[in-house]
């Protein structure tokens, strides 16, 4: 799992961490059930604040990719097929970026997705 943080990027550091972990889950270099490095350890490795790492982990938890448990740290989910789900999330991120680039509003994007869903 390679994590690169570019301070010049418009993407917040926490999201950059989330993106790297998501990519690692998608390409199976982190297995379902595997424990991620402790937030404190990863923060020390990257030279960032612990809260930055925790924000990234929190985002992955919202996406259903990892579970955060008190005392056990962050563990990749064992159900919900995390690799496929991670790839799906990457697709959604791409979609959002593309739509923002076109200047679409959130409602317009959701309408387009609904149209896509009803068409299949």
């Amino acid at each position, binding site marked *: 799992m*390679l994590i690169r943080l570019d301070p*010049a990027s418009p993407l917040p550091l926490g999201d950059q961490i989330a993106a790297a972990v998501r990519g690692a889950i998608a390409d199976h*270099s982190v297995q379902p059930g595997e424990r991620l490095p402790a937030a404190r350890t*990863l923060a020390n490795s*990257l030279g960032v604040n612990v809260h930055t790492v925790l924000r990234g982990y929190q985002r992955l938890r919202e996406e259903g990719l990892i579970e955060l448990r008190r005392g056990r740290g962050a563990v990749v989910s064992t159900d919900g097929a995390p690799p496929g789900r991670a790839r799906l999330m990457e697709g959604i991120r791409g979609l959002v970026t593309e739509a923002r680039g076109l200047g679409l509003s959130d409602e317009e994007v959701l309408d387009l997705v609904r149209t896509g869903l009803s068409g299949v």
Partner: protein
Amino acid sequence: MTRTGARAHAVRRLLIALAPHALACAVFLAVFMARRDQLPDPLATHFAGAGHADGFTTAGAFLYQGLALMAVPGVLLAALAYALDARPGRAATAVGYGVAGFLGSMLTSVVLGNAHAGSAERAHLALWEPAAALAVGAAAGAVGWLLAGRGLPPRDEAPVPPGPAAPSLTLGKGESAAWTRSVASRPLRIAGLALLAAGGALVPLVGWGAGVSLFAGGPLVLLLSGARVTVDRHGLTANVPGLPRPRLRIPLARIETATSRHVDPLRDLGGWGYRAVPGRSGLAFRSGEALVARLTTGSEFVITVDDAATAAALLNALADRDHAETGA
């Protein structure tokens, strides 16, 4: 060397290593069978200083024990020589031959002594018999020395080439990066479970004394059967998954270059776990892809881990940046 040539050499190594043990077993078995009718049961198998028998074993058990005593080291040595693809040194081959010669003649003379005496109580081992066995062992050792010196090709000791240009990735100014991956070892995990099982079986059989150390060793081996490997601004770190210590850390300042390479634990590091051999040390969890860091001291530090190429590229980039900053 061609593939068939290498194979032929491996078979030859195997035969040379096995031959004396097989011969000793054959002689012992032949003598035992030929004198079977004259042998007392149980046999005298242990002799006091004066040569009188003071220990006895049933004939059947002695036959199997004798064969096992000679065959087990033979098979182990041969398997090791074959698996390692390494030339057992001339001295090692000579010692193998000597041991086979000594054991074979000693066990055979015990059989002959029993057959001669007719009853175990009267069996006698003269002082010259161990001496003769030693002489046979020495002679066999000399044969081994000659055989090992001739037939075996010298092992190519060519140092590992520095490899293609070390991989690297471009780090932007102010960009921070880390790579981390966990690795588990099936051989070590099996060894840990085997220790637990052996300890668990021994404790009720022979008591706490012998079993408890095995039983305690199991969890320790299991705990150390995996690692989290991290490459970051501190350097290269390996620690027990989930625990900050114990850990191994090579700071960036001590790293010259890094590459990824195929590593065979037995051949390259002499076994599994934390190993050190001249010029190289490291953690071997399995055979296959490994991160290899060449240190400023000239030696290598090796960790077997997946995706080692990415780790090596990042380690090179971080080490370059570190060396540039410190002006080294």
